[in-house]
């Protein structure tokens, strides 16, 4: 029993190790996709300007020092400000970049649902009021009843 527990613990550690290593070992290619070249106004991975080369060299130096991706992004923000991040941070005013589209979508969906419900209700009310008296009338109705009676339905 104790041996099984130890084996399970070792397996769990082995499974977690790559994830921990991935968090620690930042990659220039991954970071380049998430930060901007402030002078060019493009993603760093697309930029080849002298400023972009310096920024890439700065990231490489921090990677060599063993900094994590989050630490490197923090260092870039300290140097160039929040605008160096390709995606806004999820806090403070930048949070609105994520919240506003969601709120707008929900509001639009609710408005659409309310509109559809009103439209359907108006349609059914109007239908009840204006529904024509369909079906044969008078002699036609009598003839139809007689025909139907012959078929013994």
């Amino acid at each position, binding site marked *: 029993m104790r041996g099984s527990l130890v084996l399970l613990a070792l397996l769990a550690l082995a499974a977690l190790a790559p994830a921990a290593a991935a968090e620690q070992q930042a990659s220039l290619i991954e970071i380049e996709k998430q930060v901007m070249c*402030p*002078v060019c106004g493009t993603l760093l991975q697309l930029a080849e*300007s*002298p*400023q972009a*080369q*310096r*920024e890439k060299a*700065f990231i490489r130096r921090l990677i060599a020092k063993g900094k994590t991706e989050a630490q490197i992004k923090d260092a870039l923000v*300290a*140097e*160039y*400000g*929040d*605008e*160096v991040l390709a995606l806004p941070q999820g806090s403070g005013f930048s949070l609105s970049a994520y919240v506003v589209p969601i709120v707008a979508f929900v509001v639009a969906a609710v408005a659409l649902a309310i509109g559809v419900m009103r439209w359907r209700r108006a349609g059914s009310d109007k239908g009840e009021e204006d529904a024509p008296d369909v079906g044969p009338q008078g002699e036609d109705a009598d003839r139809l009843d007689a025909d139907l009676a012959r078929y013994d339905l």
Partner: protein
Amino acid sequence: MRSSIAVLAVLAVVGLLVFGLVSKGSSGVAVGDPAPAGPLPQLEGGGDGSLADYRGQWVLVNFWASWCVPCKDEAPALEKFQRQHGGPHFTVVGIDSRDLTSDGREFVRRYGLSYPQLRDGDGGAAHDYGTTGVPENYLVDPTGKVQWLLRGPVDEQYLHDEVAPFLPEGKS
């Protein structure tokens, strides 16, 4: 009620469009305009500095970056001009824009720049001036108004011909 909401929504959209146009369409300072003087961190040492610290002096504001080749070319001329004219009535002030702090400091050491240096890492000051790149130079008078500007590099001759005539006689 419903029409009020519609009007508010339209106004909000129009407001956002106007804000976008205004914030993108900054044309920059011109001769006669007040020079933006917001606080900026010192490139070396702690604390902030500002052009407002130099009210009463003529100031040549030089936007530069260590990765900019023309900035390297003009740095010796600016340092020489500072040594010739720097004093109680004139100084060059460098603003290192959209640059790494360590690279900026190395640049200052390499070219032996003795005049004050501020740091504009996020380019906010450059945006306030409406710069189109680096280097750019603005001569600010003792009242804080721009009297001359050059959207490009200066050299010794240009500084002698264009900037020196504004300054008080002798070493400023």
